[in-house]
């Protein structure tokens, strides 16, 4: 009789829900053409909703963190909150991609989307360098294919190859760093690494730096961001939204967890490094966005600058910083998925990439989507009446408490610069007068798309709602931050 570790099925339930959905979606490739899309899409939708529900139950059940599976995973409220955000984001992305014009590959598309979601949901519960690497590769490999899935478009293939090369480079660096940390401490699990106390080992410092660099590739923090604009522009728009919201959520939560649980003794070193990365991302993201004309590239640079804000929260190394990060992720995910869904709507009616010029007049032609886009833009800029404002405020106050006042000044300056491109998008929405109105020439107006409408409405509700129910969300975020040892 072999001793097997006891498995906590509740903790794994979000992952299992998504994997089951992926299996059903993949099997639907065998069905007749007209059933394939709805079966695969509904399976993926149910999978993401199921994952979110399971995550809610896990959140409720795990007021004290519990280590699972021989110390490779952890069940705590931090992971559960991230899984909840990921599940809801994924469900909205499924709705947004419902009427995307694709050839025959609906089943593969939704199966990969659900598998990527399962990987992220697994990744945020990682408590060990091995599960960290495996979770990271799990969702990254799915995303490489999803980025390139529109293989009839050369830009999609090019984006896929670029993402694969740069992403693979980033994960190799992360892996080598993990190997060095393992060498220095002979431990893989995060708390054991912290307890090993190998502070004077050069391998540990080199390993920490390489792990940080590998994760910085995934959160697209400058100077590890160079893939972001190209990949965001080339991939199918719904997938871009998924990468902007879900990949960032997962990677930021894990970055926070690794740094806080495995390397608290090296705190003086990594807080400075993270603060510098934040500063570079803020400067580079905002200045880069000013020069762009393509809406997806503008949003890509804006996501780099948001990575800067979120890194500020991590650099604070306090429970207030963790709370600020977790709060920030909620309106940020909603705004990015929503903004990319509006881009997808425009793209479908034009059948061409959306630049500022081709955006002109959308505010008159599609008043609802226009208003939604300006809500997202103002939210990203941090205007009141959107959760974006409190997100920035909490991040700034956490950074100020940690003594990073120069970073706060830079953040305020970056916010001011960012108005230049966010408001520019809003201005272009209404650039054509009513007299010049004509619907886009892609074979008449597109079919009605209620799923996309629901996706955009849900994003608007979260963006605006997170402003009005800020205290409950903050309480949840502070519970989640409480599962980390500050």
């Amino acid at each position, binding site marked *: 009789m072999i001793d097997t570790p006891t498995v906590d099925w509740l903790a794994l339930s979000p992952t299992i829900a998504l994997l089951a959905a992926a299996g059903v979606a993949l099997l639907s490739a065998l069905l007749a053409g007209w059933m394939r899309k709805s079966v695969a899409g509904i399976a993926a939708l149910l999978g993401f909703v199921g994952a979110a529900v399971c995550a809610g139950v896990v959140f409720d059940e795990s007021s004290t963190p519990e280590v699972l599976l021989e110390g490779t995973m952890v069940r705590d409220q931090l992971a559960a909150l991230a899984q909840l955000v990921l599940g809801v984001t994924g469900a909205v992305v499924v709705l947004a991609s419902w009427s995307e014009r694709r050839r025959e590959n609906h089943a593969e598309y939704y199966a990969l989307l659900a598998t990527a979601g399962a990987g992220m949901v697994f990744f945020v519960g990682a408590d060990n360098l091995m599960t960290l690497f495996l979770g990271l590769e799990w969702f990254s*490999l799915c995303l490489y294919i999803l980025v390139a899935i529109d293989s009839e478009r050369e830009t999609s293939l090019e984006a896929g190859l670029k993402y694969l090369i740069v992403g*693979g480079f980033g994960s*190799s660096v992360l*892996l080598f760093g993990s190997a060095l940390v*393992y060498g220095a401490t002979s431990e893989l699990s995060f708390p054991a690494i912290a307890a090993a106390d190998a502070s004077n080992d050069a391998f540990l410092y080199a390993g920490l730096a390489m792990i940080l660099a590998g994760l910085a590739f995934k959160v697209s923090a400058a100077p590890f961001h160079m893939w972001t604009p190209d990949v965001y522009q080339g991939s199918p728009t719904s997938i871009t939204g998924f990468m902007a919201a879900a990949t960032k959520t997962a990677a930021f939560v894990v970055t926070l967890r690794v740094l806080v649980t495995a390397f608290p003794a090296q705190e003086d070193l990594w807080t400075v490094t993270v603060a510098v990365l934040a500063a570079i991302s803020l400067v580079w993201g905002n200045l880069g966005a000013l020069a*762009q004309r393509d809406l997806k590239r503008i949003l890509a640079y804006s996501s780099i600058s948001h990575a800067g804000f979120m890194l500020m929260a991590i650099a604070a190394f306090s429970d207030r910083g963790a709370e600020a990060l977790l709060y920030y992720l909620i309106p940020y995910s909603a705004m990015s998925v929503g903004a990319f869904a509006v881009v997808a709507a425009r793209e479908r009616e034009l059948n061409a990439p959306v630049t500022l010029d081709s955006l002109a007049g959308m505010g008159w032609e599609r008043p609802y989507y226009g208003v939604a886009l300006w809500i997202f833009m103002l939210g990203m800029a941090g205007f009141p009446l959107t959760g974006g404002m409190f997100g920035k405020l909490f991040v700034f106050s956490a950074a100020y408490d940690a003594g990073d006042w120069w970073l706060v000044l830079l953040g305020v300056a970056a916010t001011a610069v960012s108005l230049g491109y966010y408001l520019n998008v809003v201005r272009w929405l209404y650039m054509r007068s009513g007299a010049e109105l004509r619907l886009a020439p892609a074979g008449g107006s597109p079919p009605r798309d209620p799923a996309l409408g629901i996706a955009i409405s849900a994003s608007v509700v979260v963006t605006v709602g997170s402003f009005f129910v800020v205290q409950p969300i903050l309480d949840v975020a502070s519970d989640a931050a409480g599962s980390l040892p500050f």
Partner: protein
Amino acid sequence: MMDGPDVGWYLIVAAILFGIGALGVMLRRSPLIVLLSLEIMLNAANLTLIAFARQQGDLDGQIFALAVMAVAAAEVAIGLGLIVAMARRRMLLDVDQASALRG
């Protein structure tokens, strides 16, 4: 008890391999060679893991290395698939020329 060269030598070889791989990813133009270089980087990390596992008499590193091999195989399968798709569309197989997306 470990026979053969000291663990330091393995680490030196691994570091050299990692450097060769990283330079290959950054300098070579053919996507096939770039994929090959990525594999070299991953295997350099594997060698490090195994060397440390042997030095410390701990199996975790070896298990990790086995898992990495599976991941590396999956990654290269996806990469080759992309390259085949690009070749079918008669796109130029040169990463320096892949510049439809830029700015």
